[in-house]
């Protein structure tokens, strides 16, 4: 099948690649660009492990085609931290022991970032609803929710 040339931006860097028409953005990120921080848990948009931010909007990258990257900008877990400095969400996930096995962690952090980008003052309930698309089987969400609330407070202080 003929491949399509796709030009977009990934974590602030321009990328250009040849994309099979049926390939998902998740496959493009993992297999073509080597960004394996974005995880596949179901490939059907049900677990949120593949969450990325596409033009400012939280999406499951398994439900987006690779060719849709054309002219658009995507942020993945690899693009959350600044050089040598963790994002407050990442730092609080560590401090609050919100990581157990770690497979859902990238998706949770990306989803939490999308939430805090649009709502810097979330309540516990808003955090829970904001993460409702991200399955975590290890933590019971308690420490994850606390980490997001703590990161939100941290970000407000920095602002």
């Amino acid at each position, binding site marked *: 099948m003929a491949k399509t040339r796709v030009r977009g931006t990934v974590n602030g860097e321009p990328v250009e690649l040849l994309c099979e028409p049926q390939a998902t953005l998740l496959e493009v990120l993992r297999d073509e660009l080597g960004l394996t921080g974005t995880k596949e*848990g179901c490939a059907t948009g049900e677990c949120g492990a593949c969450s990325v931010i596409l033009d400012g909007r939280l999406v499951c990258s398994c439900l987006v085609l690779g060719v849709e990257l054309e002219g658009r900008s995507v942020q993945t877990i690899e693009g959350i931290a600044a050089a040598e400095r963790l994002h407050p969400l990442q730092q609080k996930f560590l401090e609050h022991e919100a990581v157990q096995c770690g497979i859902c962690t990238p998706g949770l952090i990306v989803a939490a970032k999308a939430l805090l980008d649009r709502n810097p003052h979330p309540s516990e309930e808003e955090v829970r609803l904001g993460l409702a698309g*991200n399955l975590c089987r290890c933590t*019971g969400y308690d420490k994850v929710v606390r980490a997001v609330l703590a990161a939100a407070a941290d970000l407000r202080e920095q602002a």
Partner: protein
Amino acid sequence: MSEPRYKCIGTRPIRPDGVDKVTGRASFGADLSLPGMLHGRVLRSPHAHARIRSIEVEPALAVEGVKAVITAADLPDLASQAAQGAETQTDFRDLSRNVLARDKVLYHGHAVAAVAATSRTAAERALAAIRVDYEVLPAVLDLDSALAPGAPILHEDLRTRGLAGGGAPTNLAARIEIGRGDVEKGFAEADVVVEREFTTRMVHQGYIEPHAVVARTAEDGHSVVWCCTQGPFVVRAYCARILGMDLSRIRVIPSEIGGGFGGKTTVYLEPLAILLSRRTGRPVKMVMTREEVFRATGPTSGTRIRVKIGATAKGKLTAAAATLVYEAGAFKGSPVTAAAMTMFAPYRLEQVRIEGFDVVLNKPKVGAYRAPGSAMAAFAAESALDEVALRLGMDPIDFRLANAAREGTEAPYGPKFRRIGFVETLEAAKRHPHYSAPLGPGQGRGVACGFWFNVGLQSSAAVNLNEDGTAVVVSGSPDLSGTRISLAMMAAEELGIPIERVRAVVADTETIGYSDLSAGSRVTFATGMAVVEAARDVVRQLSERAAAIWRVDPREVRWEEGRALPPQGAAGGPEPLGIEELARDAARTGGPIVGRASLTARAPGPGFATHICDVSVDRETGRVSVVRYTAFQDVGRAIHPGYVEGQIQGGAAQGIGWALNEEYLWDSSGAVENPGFLDYRMPIASDLPMIDAQLIEVPSPTHPYGVRGVGETPNVPPLAAVANAVRAATGHRFTDLPLSPPRVLEALDSEG
């Protein structure tokens, strides 16, 4: 006895593998790719039960890009032999026939053939081209039809273990019995007797990471396997046996593992990937889809449990009896024995009898799931106990306290408990503000308890002292939950150095000695014990080096806070020697310093827990919401309290999902109707409240720091804690899980 003073144990440092896990760097099962790699896929049975008349693979080999196709004909036909090291009963013959069906397929999704091709698309096309001629057989999909006279038989050679006579083929794989005393006498002495039947459905561990493997085989026949597993040594052993290879020809390198909960303690893809890589001379990667995970890995049993409990008017248990019937799936080996042993273990009982049945039927072979077998048995026992307390008009915690097992109590399965903390969990629950907090309208509160043995088994560890006095802890135990930091903390405590100067890594089957599975809540306990011994070995060597420098007897050297202290003597004696100096000078004093330990950890301290659950029941929709949850658990000693809390919170959440929503749904042909997360409904963040994990520390006498396993026990009480809360809210005793909205609504409506 005064509390020991620790510098590091009990603190909450950041885990060494943490940064990689919050930045996406950590490499999980599916994250590895190798140059020239092929993609493997598995052809799965479209029937729940069928005889394989023939498999024609040539059309698949003709598909462009396809490099190899394998079937059971490519594997040695193994004789029946029990596998060692497994968490649930496993037979090598069954295991081989589960990874590739031979003669018959026994469940919808059973692997029939595997292919390797240059792309996933080509591999998919090859699967479609394989022609399998099936003779479809009637399937047995529930316990009753599996045990009915004249039922279709899965295995013509299966006879019931534990039953005399017979000789006819059967689906009843085993009958077991444990207990003591005379239960009839006990029931005769009772003022209240409650007898009920409970049922639970097959549920899945629900780890978010699908099974994944990359295998590469060199021309000399040596294979390297990268996979997400709870036990690289077990993967090596099972693959070697299934493929007829020496252990020395397989190296298993565990990746990070995205959850397991018992489900990654056996092999599915690994032997196929090895064989395909051997056939093609190229690396082969295989990753399951989510649908394959649900259809063809190892969920836990659906069960039917009859329980009878008697007590005096004053609340003393006089007898308990139970009959447990557990689904094993396509091959023998449900966790019914563990269920029987744990079911009444929290209580003092003179008269107790439990009978268990292991039943094969046309569903995937069950695997281990967090305290295998125990959660369902506790659902039955703790619901019935709740009913007895209700009839007696006793507080459910007081009733349990009056019968609680203590040090010296003889467990129903034999041994006497050493120091245990069950009573302490009950007392803490009773004191906690949650227990006396007012409830809202439509709400109810339930209490339930749970027990798990915890296991010890074999572990190896090394502590390498670096030239600058920092250290590396090496173990063979994959880290599912933060065990690296716990192991590092124990080494830091022994060496007397800050945790920042210790790093812990997980090694592979060729770089560390044998270690059993990361399962049975054993890593911090057993591997931790090995790490403590290895660190003490380092301290001994450091003390010897210092003694040699000082020309004194090593026994006179004390090790304290990372320094060797010289013998007490007159002023002007030598200054203490720090670990940095001793490490720096190691080259001149005897060479590198490496501590090692390999052991079989015996007599693990069992875990007990008491959970309090508040629910709110919506009578319009039947939806049950957990609104408050507190879990009390005897953890022995919490090395890193944060990860101990995390285990308890996560276990409680899994149990809540099991209680409220999770179940396999089957159509009449035996296909799974809900092989995805949308319809197999696990708890999401907005379903749950905060889960308050209360750590009770009654140190286990068998670990140097008193550690008890903690991972599995928290999954035991929630099923009954939720159901007892729903009973309190509605007055209805639910005996059939899950308490999903349609089922709750139907029950409440039928009561009017």
